[in-house]
Every structure is written in structure tokens, then in C-alpha cells.
């Protein structure tokens, strides 16, 4: 078998390179930090990217050289793909990692692997069932959910039927929002009936649109209010409501997070309120916390980055504008 010669040649090649490269330790004084989102197409993650770049720019202005590597899973919302990204960066030997875990359990082992390779990890956005990380920088999603529930409850005057379309199985951040919403209604608005709260939308807008249509074809005639736990569900549910002529306030919609489309819907009155996080601040603090940790400073194990409720009336205020329209171009360039 001549093929064995080639196998041997490949082996030899690996061997030679493996031996020759031990000394080749790069990094000229600067820190290399990888920021790993859950996906790259949602606008939320672009704000996260911008926040990381903002931190980098400020650190560089202060004389600290930092390289930010931005790398999401190849397939959006695929746990296995995100594990691969984490593993590949461990093998590559970055100085630190900022990770938004796709699953609170599946990513536990990769984060421990990073710990064993002396790579500290700061968790952002979604929780992880482990304590092997340096810090957890995120919105208090439960409070965000309660805020959405309170607003919807007041809009409906404490009575009526509501729907909640869950986001995706195993996503800790959205599950907390959903729980917060349900708890708020149960405790403070007992007159409101939840028609359905056990359906999942799925990872993409397309799936969320289908799930919304299915839900509305069943409950479309009796529903008075809807809670959507993330951006893709908000946009898709609003679209599905428009299709059946229930948009524009006939059915009150409270969404979560912002995108170009959901802000347009808020302005036109199809959406009555959006609970917004501060992704720029989240990533910014994530990177800053990691750099502090790498520099030997003590960091808090839990850092809250806050939520706000945006309505048609307050969306023009400057503090809301900064949240709604983060200057992405300033950090990411026009290409993004």
C-alpha cells in the first residue's frame, strides 16, 4: 500500500512542525481576548461586538494593548459548534475569553477546560451552572421579565388574556425573562389569564414566525396581550399579528431587546413596549472585567448591567436613544 507512505509523510510533517514550533510564542506584550457570542446575525450581538471594541479602544487609549477576536459558532445557536469555538481558542492559547454560553450546562465542561489551561473566562448575557468563571456580567433577566409583565398588566387594566411564546429550549437568559413575566402576572395581576406559555419559537426568525402563526391561529380571537422574550420572537409575533389584522394596539405587544424592525414597529404603534438591555455596556464591562482580572485586580463575581422599558413616548429621550441606537458604525465601521 503506497498510501501508507503518504500517511507516514503526513505524520512526519506534523512531527517536524510540532517540534519546530514550541518556541514560537507570539503576542508582543498585548493581551489577546476572544469574545464568543451565541450567534452573529442578531443585531443584539452586533451591539455586543461594538461594546467589546469600545473597551479595546479605551484600553488602548490608556496604554494597554488588547487584541479583540470576535468569533461566533459556525451554525447559529448550535451548542456543539460553540463548544468547538471555545476548544479551538483554548488550543490556540488566547489570554482570556468572554463567552455568552448557548446552554447553561453543555458549556460547563469547555469552560472548565479553559480553566485547566489557565485561560480565565468571563461569562456574559446568559448564566452557566458552574463557578469556574472569573465573573458573570449580565442583565438581570428576571427583573426584565417582571418589568415587561408589569407594563403589560397595566396596559390591559389588570384583566384579559395573554400569550407568551417562549424563545428556545435551554436558553437560560430567556427562561428567566419568561419566569419573571409569569411571576409578575401571577402575583400582581391575578385577573389576567395566560392562554399559552409552553410553546417554543426556536432559534431563527423564520421558525419564530411559523410558531407565532400557529399560536395565533388557535388563540387569535381571544388574545389581548403578548409577551415576547427576545428580538426574533418580538419581530415575528408582530408580523404575524399584522397578518391577521390585530396589530396597531388591538393586541398589546411587549417585546424584549431591539432591532431596526422592532423599533419601527414601536414607532408605528404595533409594539407597545420593549424591555431593553444594554449589550454595549455588557460587552464593555465583560472585557474590562477580564482585563482587570488578568491584571490581578479582584473582580466582582456578579455584575448587573440593568434594563429599561422603552415606549413610544419615551423613545426620543437622549438616554433611551443611546440604548436604542448605539453608535455601531463608530466601533465596527460601516461594513457591519
Amino acid at each position, binding site marked *: 500500500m*503506497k*498510501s501508507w507512505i503518504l500517511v507516514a509523510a503526513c505524520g512526519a*510533517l506534523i512531527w517536524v512542525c510540532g517540534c519546530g514550533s514550541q518556541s514560537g510564542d507570539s503576542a508582543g506584550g498585548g493581551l489577546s481576548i476572544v469574545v464568543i457570542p451565541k450567534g452573529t446575525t442578531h443585531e443584539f450581538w452586533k451591539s455586543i461586538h461594538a461594546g467589546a471594541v469600545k473597551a479595546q479602544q479605551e484600553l488602548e487609549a490608556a496604554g494597554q494593548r488588547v487584541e479583540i477576536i470576535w468569533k461566533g459558532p459556525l451554525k447559529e445557536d448550535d451548542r456543539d459548534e460553540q463548544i468547538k469555538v471555545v476548544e479551538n481558542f483554548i*488550543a*490556540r*492559547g488566547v489570554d482570556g475569553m468572554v463567552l455568552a454560553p448557548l446552554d447553561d450546562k453543555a458549556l460547563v465542561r469547555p469552560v472548565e477546560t479553559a480553566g*485547566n*489551561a489557565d485561560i480565565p473566562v468571563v461569562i456574559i448575557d446568559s448564566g452557566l451552572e458552574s463557578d469556574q468563571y472569573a465573573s458573570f456580567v449580565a442583565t438581570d433577566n428576571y427583573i426584565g421579565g417582571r418589568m415587561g409583565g408589569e407594563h403589560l398588566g397595566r396596559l390591559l387594566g389588570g384583566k384579559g388574556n395573554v400569550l407568551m411564546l417562549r424563545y428556545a429550549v435551554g436558553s437560560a437568559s430567556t427562561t428567566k425573562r419568561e419566569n419573571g413575566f409569569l411571576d409578575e402576572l401571577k402575583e400582581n395581576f391575578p385577573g389576567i389569564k395566560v392562554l399559552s406559555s409552553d410553546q417554543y419559537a426556536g432559534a431563527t426568525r423564520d421558525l419564530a414566525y411559523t410558531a407565532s402563526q400557529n399560536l395565533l391561529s388557535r388563540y387569535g380571537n381571544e388574545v389581548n396581550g403578548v409577551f415576547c422574550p427576545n428580538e426574533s420572537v418580538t419581530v415575528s409575533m408582530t408580523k404575524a399579528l399584522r397578518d391577521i389584522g390585530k396589530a396597531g394596539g388591538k393586541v398589546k405587544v411587549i417585546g424584549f431587546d431591539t432591532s431596526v424592525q422592532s423599533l419601527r414597529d414601536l414607532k408605528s404603534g404595533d409594539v407597545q413596549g420593549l424591555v431593553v438591555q444594554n449589550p454595549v455596556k455588557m460587552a464593555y464591562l465583560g472585557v474590562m472585567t477580564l482585563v482587570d482580572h488578568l491584571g490581578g485586580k479582584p473582580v466582582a463575581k456578579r455584575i448587573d448591567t440593568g434594563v429599561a422599558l422603552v415606549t413610544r413616548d419615551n423613545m426620543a429621550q437622549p438616554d433611551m436613544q443611546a440604548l436604542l441606537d448605539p453608535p455601531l458604525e463608530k466601533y465596527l465601521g460601516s461594513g457591519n
Partner: protein
Amino acid sequence: MKLAQFGSGDFLKAIRPFVGLFVVLLLFMMDAELRSVFFKGGNFKTILTQTVIVATGAMGMTMVIVSGGIDLSAGSVVALCSVVTARLIEQGHGLAAVLTLTVLIGGLVGLANGGIITAFRMMPFIVTLGMMGIARGISKWLANNQTVNPDEPLESVNRLMDNSQSPLTFFPLPDGVWLVLGLAVVMTVVLRATVFGRYVFAIGSNEDTARLCGIRVSSNKIAIYVLAGVFFGLAGVMQFSRLTQGDPSVAIGLELQIIAAVVIGGASLSGGAGSIPGSVIGAFMMACLANGSGIKDWPNYMQEIIIGVVIILAVGMDKVEPILQRFFRRRT
């Protein structure tokens, strides 16, 4: 004389995946940034671990494709079996029982595939396309539409794909890697040197001729799909070990990666050609490309484009080879 031998189609086909891997490694070596990071022991362990699931599936798929069939249900069966593994661990079974029962479920799906294909003379593409949906649906049903996380983890299963303890050195390799290497050797022998293996090639080359030669095509075909299902079941156990949870939505599109690995490995979708080492190398090569693109900071879309190009190139070799052969023949 020697040149004529080099030009023979069989030889070129057999070495194609190795040449491909060789070229990829050579290209990686020429790049200073990749050289310093890619060729490290820890990184190779990472790549090998990432290859395990696709390689396990590819071994089953190789037999199916060599026999002239296709199995599109592979990804769904992997998801189903990862959920089955989780449920079995929840019920407190040990390693042997979990492995056996999960693999059995995979084989059962294969039995359904093979049975329907032979009994009703249906296209494997259609039957397994249907099974893809059925198995995915059953796995979501079995998992109650969420991930299944056993309260008391079974260490021996979790360890199959665990490289968390020594991420920076090549050894020790996770158990799963050794298992795949061992199975690759066994399956190579089965496919090349046993009667069953030769039947697989005979059926794939020309089913009617095989039948006329006295080969019991139907029962052999069923056996092929069952065996493939067994491998997908094993890949499901590996998938569970990787996520440490049963995930009904995992491995979407995995069948396409597996088929790509088999095709890069020199198999022909019209049957009669293919090899186990080739398919395993194909899987390894795809993992190398993904890993290398990560190190180079290529954006994800570049990585997708590159892997797409590699698949077409690998199959395009089929068309280049006759030209090469003619060239060599003229020389001798």
C-alpha cells in the same frame, strides 16, 4: 511500468484523501501564524476529539454509500440516540447497558430503513428523508421538547469525549478517539477482507449482476442499513458525552457533513467505491480546515465557502483522473 501503475484509477482513488490532507497540512505549514499554533499537541487532540462524531457516522455511511444507497437520517438518529443515552442514564443504567441499548435503538432505525427500502423497492433517498423527520420528531417527543440532563451523571460516558483535564498536551487522548481508531481498523478489515464486505461492493457496483451471482441482495442491504444505524447510535452516545446532555435539536445537518467526509474520502455516490480510512481522513480533514480557519480569524462565511470548495474539488478529482491516466499511459 511503474508509471502505469501510478496512473491506475484504483491507486489514485485510494490515495486521494491522503493527498488532500497532505496538501491542507502543507498549506497550513507555509503560514507562519498557523504553523505556531495549529501544529501543537493540544490542538491536535482538540481536532481529533472534534472529528470523533463525524468519523463514527462516516464509517456507517461509507458502507451505505458503497452499496449504492444513502442515509439522510444520520443526523436525526444521532440526536435521537443522544436523548436515548440521557434517558438511560437517568434510569441508572451502567456504561455497558447504555452503550448496548443506545446502539440497538440506532440499529432498529436502520432496520426500519433497510426493511422499507428492500420490501417496497423504494429509493433510499426518499425513505431515509422520511426517517430523518421521524427520528427527529421522536427524539423531541422522548425529550419533552427540551434538553435532557441526568441528575446523576455517568462518569464513564461523560469521559468518552472529555479532554478538559489536560487541554494542552496530546496525551492522554479521550477514550472516544481510541474507540474510533480501533473501530476504523476493524471496519477496514470487514469491508476489504470479509465476504460481507465484498458483497457490499458487489451490490454497489451492479445490483442486478450481484443478484445473478447468487448474492442475497435484500438481506445484505438490510444488514448494511442496520450496521450503519449502529454506528449512528454510537455517534449519538459520543454526542451526548460531548454536550453532557441529551439534546433533541443537536446534529441538524450532520448527515451532510458525514456524506461530505465520505465523498472527500473517495467514495462515489453511484456506489461501488469508497473506503473506511478515506472517510475517516475526510472527517479529519474537515475538522482541520475548520480549526485552521478559526486560528486564521477567517469569518465564518469564509469557512463555509472553503469547505464547500473542498467538497467540489474532492469530487472533481473524479473528472481529472481520467485525464491524468491518459497522460500517464501515453508516457509508457
